[in-house]
């Protein structure tokens, strides 16, 4: 069982765009090497499900999503590839980025940008849209036709980089950072007792269609669901973000209010820094789908603050990820299920 930073590195560097999440299955298996009592499977919709048998009969499922935003080939245009996004990529970060294209061959390329010398007057003030951009693989049309086709995925290159003060920078911390947080629970519960059956679910397609959360929570049908996703950390221009070292705890319609009360009690008791996130309506997370699955599932939502969301250089503080793992491991060993179920009055 790997340590948190290593888990985060493996997860964020693995390739798993919306609809092709299985590529990351091997990476996840690597993380859990040597762990007994744990099974890992890939279901037909691309969800990765890690199961740990517990010594209580109830089930808790953690839902994070495994898919990353990326780009997809729409046309082979002469010696270049045209593309569009899958999930919400900001076009403004694309110019001048290095990419990798996954076709019959895996090849590196660049999203081409005209140098200032050749630009027309005022051109650098023009916002480029997807239709204006292209990938240059330094290959000729004949070769491109041979190895690539429409639907091939393009992932922006980004190496896991350690910055000062436990900050790290990489792509897809949305939402592999949350996945790291829940898998790291396995490290924290080694010395705890009274653990229920635990499902760690890395959902497919949250960034696009939410098909992963809709289907995985139907098949698992847990007694309690914990959704972990990312949120905006405070950064210039994002005054409403939460502090990088706080956990976000959601309050709103997707969240069961008595479970919210319970988990904030634990956080206060353990001095784990948290901020309340007001989400009265659509939370924009898997909680939207999970809470109304089947006859309803008791759900809570925790958030990991990250900077530069939906760019290839997302930044997070590793200590904050660990706080989520710690809080949730105490939660699973202490929660009294009888208090959070159906109430029969008569």
């Amino acid at each position, binding site marked *: 069982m790997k340590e948190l930073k290593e888990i985060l590195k493996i997860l964020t560097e693995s390739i798993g765009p919306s609809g092709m999440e299985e590529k990351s299955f091997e990476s996840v298996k690597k993380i859990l090497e040597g762990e007994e009592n744990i099974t890992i499977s890939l279901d037909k919709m691309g969800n990765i499900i890690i199961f740990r048998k517990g010594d209580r009969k109830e089930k808790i499922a953690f839902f994070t999503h495994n898919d990353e935003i990326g780009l997809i080939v729409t046309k082979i245009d002469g010696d270049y590839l045209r593309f569009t996004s899958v999930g919400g990529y900001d076009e403004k970060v694309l110019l001048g980025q290095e990419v990798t294209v996954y076709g019959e061959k895996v090849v590196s390329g660049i999203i081409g940008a005209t140098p200032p010398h050749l630009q027309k007057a005022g051109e650098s003030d023009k916002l480029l849209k997807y239709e204006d951009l292209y990938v240059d693989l330094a290959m000729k049309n004949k070769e491109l036709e041979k190895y690539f086709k429409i639907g091939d995925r393009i992932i922006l290159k980004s190496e896991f980089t350690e910055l000062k003060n436990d900050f790290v920078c990489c792509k897809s911390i949305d939402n592999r950072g949350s996945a790291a947080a829940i898998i790291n629970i396995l490290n924290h519960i080694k010395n705890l007792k009274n653990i229920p059956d635990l499902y760690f679910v890395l959902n497919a397609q949250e960034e696009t269609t939410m098909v992963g959360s809709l289907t995985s929570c139907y098949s698992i049908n847990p007694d309690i669901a914990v959704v972990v996703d990312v949120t905006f950390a405070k950064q210039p221009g994002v005054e*409403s973000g939460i502090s990088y070292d706080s956990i976000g705890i959601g*309050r*709103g*319609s997707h*969240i*069961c*209010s008595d479970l919210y009360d319970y988990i904030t009690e634990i956080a206060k008791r353990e001095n784990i820094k948290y*901020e*309340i*996130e*007001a989400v*009265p*309506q*659509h939370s924009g997370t898997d909680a939207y789908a999970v*809470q*109304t*699955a*089947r*006859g*309803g*599932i*008791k759900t809570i939502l925790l958030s990991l603050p990250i900077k530069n969301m939906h760019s290839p250089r997302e930044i997070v503080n590793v200590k904050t990820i660990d706080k989520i793992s710690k809080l949730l491991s105490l939660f699973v060993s202490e929660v009294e299920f009888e208090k959070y*179920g*159906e*109430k*029969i*009055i*008569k």
Partner: protein
Amino acid sequence: MILKNLSEIFGPSGNECEIRDFIVETIKDHVDSLKIDKMGNIIAFKKGKNKNSKKVLLGAHMDEVGFMIKSIEENGMLRFLPAGSIDKRVVIGKNVLIGKEKVKGVICYKPIHLQRKDYNNIPDFDSLVIDIGSTEKKDAEKYVSVGDYAVFDTKFEKKGNIIKGKSFDDRLGCAAIIEILKERYENDLFGAFFVQEEVGLRGSKAAVFNIPADYAIVLEGTSAADMPHSKDEPDYPKMGDGVVITISDRSFFVHKDLFNETVSCAKENKIKYQFKQPMVGGTDGGEIHKSKEGVKTIVFAVPSRYIHSPVSYADLRDYRSMVDLTKKLLNKLK
């Protein structure tokens, strides 16, 4: 009177505990079984008199539109978000009640004298604040927290047949089911009070999964359209013209046989009825009718002016027509 309680009780989408407790207390002696499901929906059951009865789901939603406190500024002002669909133009200068303690607050924007260029702009929710009388954050935090809910502070009044108050959408539907549950009918009856309708028809979606319904009747409060119009366009449903029967809204089309049966039932029993404008609004009927293998569903409503705002009107005679039609149908369905 029960309508007064139902209208005034605090129960925004996502925070329905108070209204739920009230309804449970009120109905528990009139039903055979009663439970609260994992989302907080109330589901009551009453066995039918007929041995070969069908199962009918009768539903209304408990939640009302409201607000949630998003953040507390250094100067003690509260920033907030809507919970449910609220026209941003109706909120300025209105009183609200916040949280469990019902802290009084007012939704503020700068005075007209100082608006200048902004006079012709409609302020977004981001530019509004709620003032509870605190002058610094530390003080405000003694009374409210981020994530607390708020509702309009509106008193219920009755003038003859006309009632005035908040949340007729859908406390009128709740009142009707409470009344209907006092009797027993030919068919098995599931009386359900849903949560979170205003934020996406969420409670009904989960509740209906475990209810084996042959038919569903949803009781609502809907927009009356008899305000002044600038051109010759639809001005129905009208207050006083009877119970509103939905042909279609944005969430569903009524089941044709059930619709025909309902209209003849209304005619036979001389119950005043009218139709809703097609393709307007959405209700729990939208989730229920396409649940699992499908449920034959119809929606009745009381036409109410100015729903989703601090103050609405409705006509008690339309409410009475809705209750009567539902009771007749509960005995007629086969």
